């Protein structure tokens, strides 16, 4: 069970997670161990095996295209960290 090298900064960026240098060191080592353990899946021949995404396969589940009750705007905004005029306030995205 060899530990695998893990590029923690690259993956933390993909996941939009700010990590302290201490967290980076600790997580990289732990994740290297876990990936080392996961390597055991390579022992199996899965050439002709279909992947399972869901154990109870239900395909293309739709509901009738009808207007139904939904969350009131005030309720949707109630937990917002910043809001005004019935809108979420966010940092400027387009210059």
């Amino acid at each position, binding site marked *: 069970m060899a530990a695998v090298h893990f590029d923690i900064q690259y993956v933390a960026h993909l996941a939009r997670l700010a990590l302290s240098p201490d967290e980076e060191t600790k997580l990289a080592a732990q994740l290297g161990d876990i990936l080392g353990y996961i390597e055991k*899946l390579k022992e199996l021949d899965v050439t002709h*095996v279909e992947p399972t995404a869901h154990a109870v396969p239900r395909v293309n589940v739709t509901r009738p295209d009808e207007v139904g009750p939904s969350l009131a705007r005030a309720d*949707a905004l109630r937990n917002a960290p910043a809001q005004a005029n019935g809108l979420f306030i966010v940092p400027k995205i387009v210059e």
Partner: protein
Amino acid sequence: MLNQLTISELSARLARREVSAREAMQSCLERIARVDGKIHAFISHDAEDALAQADAADQWLARQGGKNAGPDGGRPLLGIPIAIKDVLAVKNQPLNCGSKILDHFISPYDATVVEKLRAAGVIVFGRLNMDEFAMGSSTENSAFGVTHNPWDLARIPGGSSGGSAAAVAADECLAALGSDTGGSIRQPAALCGCVGLKPTYGRVSRYGLVAFASSLDQVGSFTKDARDAAILLGALAGHDPRDSTSVPQPAPDYAARLTGEIKGLKLGLPREYLVGGLDAEVKAAVEAAVKKFQELGAEVVEISLPHTDYAVAVYYIVATAEASANLARFDGIRYGLRVDSVDPTELYRRTRGAGFGAEVKRRIILGAYVLSSGYYDAYYLRAQKVRTLIRGDFLKAFESVDAIVTPTTPTAAFKVGEKSDDPLQMYLSDIFTISCNLAGTCGLSVPCGFTRNPKLPIGLQLLGRPFGEETLLNLAWAFEQNTAWHREKPPL
């Protein structure tokens, strides 16, 4: 001591008008006041709201003169105090998932399971502690502190639904709801000595359950006996158009079908589960339980689930991949914590860095990695293929047996802090429960004994065919009719 009763016992007394729902709720609140300082099963509870619900139940009972109530009447759950894991939405109550990132979040709606409990007359109360976002096996990963095992306060209650298991074991409520993604109901139920049921994937709606790993998550119950689990499942099961993975298959009246008759049922004992790492006392308790089933007329055969050894690896790819996608919604924009910045990407990074705990970060990063370009085929796709093999093992086994019997956990409850610095060892403690979620079948843990010194509960796991809850409940109920393990109380 009304808080110590089972659902069916309290329901019968309520129907006879010997006691009121208010008295039952009061006795739970008194118990919480007395013992929860030591256990910390609850993050919070709203006593006033709970008592108002109790009064509404009492008014209904008064109008009916006790008719249509009671365990065999139309509303067996009327006036029963049931507490809720902090991962399910209860309208106008806090929802934190054991995390800092949800901050002062108040649920704007009820989860479908909560709606169903309310319709059944249940007193829905409390926010039960859990590992953050249900990621963990010990309830040590909560931003609200550690929950302790009622049987030994120096030990963990299991996880992630450790608060649910500890609250039921300590008689702080009559029953509790939890969620199970890789064993988060069955493992803590085993370690605290209660009955934990994880229904088949699709049996119970996930609407209003905060998503961890959507192809594995399922809502289920913690109860003091199998009959109560049957009563509760009867109320929770069924199709929900708001959850596209819920299965449109009618739910039987589980409680009415408990016969205690298990003669001729065929039970499979997987040889891969009775191997190294299994504690000797756990092994002995499970073997004694298997003998008991044989005495009661069941036939036990050895079976093989050959891909068992790969389940933990598959799980920690599939579950973390799904989690990394599901937890992307916690970005500091629409709800919860926000750590401000003028740059949106920086706002996301800081908010998530400050809001998530160590285990959640570990799993999000692992999940993002196994899905990332260049690694997807080697990890995620391969794991999904091995998942097919694991599911195939179960479907093949169920061609020849009605249920599978295993230990729920390899050991009894471990000590607080014992595994918290070694995530891989923590993950391996779920080795017996994980396959069930990958295969999408149902599973139940029932108390089957105790270790000697210290005295800690041991759980027996029963795994059933997809939608085979009826068989599992009947097996557990038959077992309870002939053993007393489920009636033992922790020394608090």
